[in-house]
């Protein structure tokens, strides 16, 4: 009889402790919810790179978890000088100023050069071909207006919790930005 009573009180005590710790857990979770939700934003965050910090090192092409990087070259046409000798398009000291593959800087020929009027040429990016290596960006920044720059393209980006490119970026150009303003563009905003 006494042992029965003893086990019963033991059980009761254990039950009480369990209930109390459950209450504490719930209280903790509630506190966490309150602390987090009071600061949370309904807007999701996405990754983007600041083109003014970018040094076009080429990591964007190789470190993305996607087979073909989510980063692509973007052109701010209003900044472009429409040069005939575009240092973003041509190799340094090209054999000829035409669209021959041996003259082009882009390894995949993703930049299209079209004649507009004398002496201006327009350069457009064929996005499916672009691998985001930033070779053209480097060339354009070095001797041109810097109108070519890299951006994370959000139709492709998987929005990983930690961006693999961001972790490998030597100039720490990657930041989380609000999904409502997912691009950090150069020049005047002339977006579609």
């Amino acid at each position, binding site marked *: 009889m006494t042992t029965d009573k003893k086990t019963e009180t033991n059980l009761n005590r254990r039950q009480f402790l369990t209930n109390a710790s459950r209450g504490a857990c719930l209280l903790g979770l509630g506190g966490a919810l309150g602390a987090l939700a009071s600061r949370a934003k309904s807007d999701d965050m996405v990754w983007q790179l600041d083109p003014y910090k970018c040094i076009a090192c080429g990591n964007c092409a190789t470190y993305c978890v996607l087979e073909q990087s989510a980063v692509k070259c973007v052109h701010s046409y209003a900044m472009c000088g429409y040069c005939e000798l575009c240092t973003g398009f041509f190799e340094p000291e090209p054999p000829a100023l035409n669209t021959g593959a041996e003259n082009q800087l882009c390894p995949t020929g993703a930049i299209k050069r079209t004649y507009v009027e004398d002496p201006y040429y327009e350069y457009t990016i064929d996005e499916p071909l672009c691998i985001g290596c930033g070779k053209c960006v480097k060339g354009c920044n070095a001797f041109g207006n810097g109108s070519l720059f890299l951006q994370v393209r959000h139709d492709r980006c998987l929005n990983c919790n*930690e961006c693999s490119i961001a972790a490998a970026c030597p100039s720490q150009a990657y930041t989380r930005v609000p999904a409502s303003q*997912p691009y950090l563009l150069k020049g005047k905003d002339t977006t579609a």
Partner: protein
Amino acid sequence: MIRRVTLPTLIICLLLAAVSLAVERFPPPDFEGGHELPLTTVPAPRADLYEYLDAAVLLAALSLGAWLVLKKRSRRGIFLLMLFSLAYFGLWRKGCVCSIGAIQNVALSLFDSHYVPPLTVIAFFLLPLFFTVFFGRIFCAGVCPLGTIQDLFLLRPLKVPLWLEQALGLLGYLYLGTAVLFAATGSAFIICQYDPFVAFFRLSGSLNMLILGICFLVICMFIGRAYCRFLCPYGVLLRFFSRVSKYHASITPDECIQCRLCEEACPFNAIEKPAQPPASQNRRQGKRLLIFLLVLLPVLTLSSGWLTSKASPAFARMHADVRLADRIWQEENGQAEGTTDASDAFRATGQPAAELYQTAQILQQTFYRGSWALGIFLGLVIGLKLIQLAVRRHKTEYQANRMTCVSCGRCFAYCPRERVRRKELETKHTEHGS
């Protein structure tokens, strides 16, 4: 020698100067023909709506899981839920943000006021925990895509010895502690970097991650849910909450008849056998051991904190700023030859090195405090584990260990009482048997 060093440096300096001055060397033309400039395209990210849909699906899956485990007691139902979760949270949603990784977002938001966590991240972090307090590890059972992929690959489970199981179980705490340290200091999200299965969900990834993932899956064929049991940092939290859960999956639907049929049913070592209370001689010894361990606890905690704080310089190098400051210092003092992309980029910003050194120093101090905290946490965990092992509970029936049981429901079918409940066996037989 001097020439060789200075010439590239000169070129780099010129290039960097050019980069910083890259503004309209060639003024944009006024076209006579009225050529219209094309517009820069800005494709939008996935709509927020989908994020809320994900959170709603998570809530629905958790509710369904709780019903399947506790009310319906159906392994088949849980299996189907597992397939759905793998397809939805894994393949369709590409595995990000998952509850395991969300630990880091929460840690970062608690320590860095600039980082604001999105609502969905909070939902993914808190919902499974709330469910666990009430229903046990339902999330592990059929909702977590990492758990389900391992569960599906389980082929021939080998029994892990209990001592090894207990020892390896401590790895999860280590993983959780270091992940929180690195996330809170804004250094890295190591849980995401070393997520072994996310490459399968994305169907792409680096070769190293793919090899790691395949290794894990091969291990999981023989050691059930190896990642969940020994590494998962979120599992550590879930174990803690599951221990006090209000309702929990039980092997038998009503009473244990000690038939021992379920003894080998669990591939995850989560079924506890009945244990007799120790004899009084042993009891006295046990008490002495317990007192010894209680005295050991603060010693263990402090020494572990001190030891871990010694590793803080190594930890601090996980932060990009500390690495950069190191590199710049080495270059300035002639200890390193040449420059790296990172040091070039830093010099191009024109920020004085002294500022960077100061930032790095503050970070190192933060890491020193963080390492102490990590060490104290680990010491506490080890000490409490020892105490837990020293306390022997008197148990009369076969029970699922509430901490390690993932509520997968495999053991249900082994229980004859369950067969009676399902009316597959007649009551008469079992009554006769018992």
